[in-house]
């Protein structure tokens, strides 16, 4: 089963984080910024040039690139 990825969501979509496929160094920061398994995220918008993404997680806005978002598996809610 191939899970959906955070990078595939459109603005306004909400999801829950299901898993990661990213190198450890990137992961530690993602975790500490609150992007842990089970955390709810909402895609708010894409930057005017298409990348990065502005997401809402744990009540605040965080921006990350599609490249990293493509390493985050999600389940839509």
């Amino acid at each position, binding site marked *: 089963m191939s899970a959906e990825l955070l990078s595939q969501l459109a603005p306004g979509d909400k999801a829950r984080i299901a898993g990661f496929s990213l190198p450890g160094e990137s992961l530690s920061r993602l975790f500490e910024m609150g992007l*842990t398994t089970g955390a709810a995220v909402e895609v708010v918008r894409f930057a005017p040039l298409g990348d990065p993404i*502005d997401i809402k997680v744990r009540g605040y806005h965080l921006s990350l690139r599609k490249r990293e978002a493509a390493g985050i598996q999600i389940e839509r809610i």
Partner: protein
Amino acid sequence: MDHPQVSETPRAVAASSVRHIAIAGNPNCGKSTIFNALTGLRQKVGNYPGVTVERKTGRFFGTHGEPMVLVDLPGSYSLQVHSADEAVARDVLLGRTDMPRPEAVVVVVDASNLERNLYLAAQLLDLQIPMVLALNMVDVAEQNGTRIDKAALEREFGVPVVPMVASKGIGLLELKQTLSREVLPAPDKRPPVPEAIEKEAQALAKRLRADQGSPFSEALLLLTLQESGLEELARHEPAILTPTMEALARLRAAGVEPLATLVEARYEWIGELCSRVVHQEGEVSKLTLSDRIDLIVTHRVWGWVAFLGVMAIMFFCIFTVAQYPMEWIEGGFGWLGEQAKALIPEGHFQSLVTDGVIAGVGGVVVFLPQILILYFFLGLLEDSGYMARAAFMMDRVMSSVGLHGKSFIPLLSSFACAIPGIMASRTIENRKDRLVTILVAPLMSCPARLPVYALMIAVMMPVASAAAKAGIMLSMYVLGAVTAFLMAWIFKKTLLKSEKPMLLLELPPYRMPALKSIGLRMWERSGIFLRRAGTVILSFSVILWALLKFPEPVNPETSKADAISQSYGGQLGHFIEPVIRPLGYDWKIGIGIIGSFAAREVFVGTMAIVYNLESEDEAPAKAEDGGKPKDEAKPAAEAKDGAEAKAAGEGESVDKEEKEKDEVRDAMLAEKHADGTPVFTPLVCVSLMVYYVLAMQCLATVAVVRRETNSWRWPLFMVGYMSVLAWGASFVIYQAGRLLGF
């Protein structure tokens, strides 16, 4: 836990000695506002040894007048460090630096973003040092319908909580009172650690060096190290590497990924705690004011309008508004020079003071208004939250050369001055990316190049329209910026090869910036600028003065131009002539280039001396006004009268500047090679301008890069690559131009 008590963690010592208190928190939580409100101007800014993160401490007085020292730690998201800033915060809190380990820590959390902010606070609970939670921006939280139960939070977190609105001074007194308590107890709680990790951490803690104040915290940090962290551990503390690796292996064999497990456990604890402490009234998902601003500011059309508008206003102020104070400063130094000249009898000493010291210092101070305006805008953009949006908008562009959005601000600032630009690169987490940003920052044209561009354009086309001149000027700026991007791309591909950095950027809610904070920062930054840049330029202008002054001609009738030709500086100019000949320059331009190594704007003044235009009060380190290109082609006759204007005093010093440039221009136009051909052909002018775009000619920048990278390696490399670049480009332009018949 069995803490080895060490002498320099006097936790039990109460009011008898001066209490050291650290103030920590996430970026954008209002930490600096609280620090500034408590300490005001009683601040000291220094550096942590070995790193370039600013060390800010300040004194304040408790409710009974007892002095206390507050240490402002750089904003950080976690003790598990990702940037130099965060490393400093960690090291101070763990007592790894040369300063005494703080006896207590104030953790500032943003009430409107509680969950994420409490993560660091939860991690700091593990330190088991006395903690006060400053719950800041409760007003914003309330606007969003969030009410936080202070008593419940104190109970759940186990530390005193002070609700605050620091920007309005609300809660400051309560914070002071809390910090003045006779005894600050250590927290009676710490976040739960999953059993397997707890066991390994306890065991590991026992093997740590006895002088570590919070061994359990240290052990948790060791167990969550990633690859690069482990490599560093192997280098610095190999003794502890083996037990750490063994513990990690055991955990992984049991199916426990320590980092993920630990972070999730902390967030879970925080989540549950928040559900009991935070009361949400009204709709959660409604758009806040900040969200509504973002609808426009990050809009695909209006976003760019706003972005360009902000940049335009900033540079308009830097290049035009700054003119007035710059003229006053020049006038002031001119007056000072006159006074010194009147007071000190003629001779070497007078010449040293007026030509060397006063002109040298003036040459630096004159850029202060531009730098202050830049810092004012940077502070405004940073504190309002717009900076993060600018990085968000520009990230795509920056990523095309392998950098990320955070490199944008340092490069942009470098248009005003590379020094603040390079210092602004500190927020870049990845070391290699930071280095690339630093290395290319000086390619952005700064105002110190303007006088050179303006002079060269005036020589090249004395009668052209202002628009044509502005066009050439602009193309020099573009050349610098394009080269910077190109070099960044090359460095990222070769020398500083690394993965494309990850961007993880918080977009904080917009806020009304506090002018006091910005003012304080301008005050302290300008001090740093004056000290760092001033000392270097001052000493170099004295050296330059000596180079052009000695050895003195035996015959007092020798003309000034001949004296310079025979001086050490002149000899140096002759010496390097073979190298710069292929670029179209003669030895006189060589002297100008040598002089420019201290600071580019020196070129015009040096040329003035070389062409024997000025009496001795016009120093080599003369600062040309950095701003507007002065294009009016004045009749040569008027320029000839320039000498008379000199005595007219400070009020006309600006006119004098104008005349100086016109005189230099006319002298340059008249300058001939031995064979009678003009020296300053348009081709030479272009070649020289391109040289000034690309060459590293700013000793102050070199000194700052030395500080920021903590070695001579990178500043020397910077000088090297930029010299090659400048020479190469000018060579190609001059030689190709000649072949094409220019």
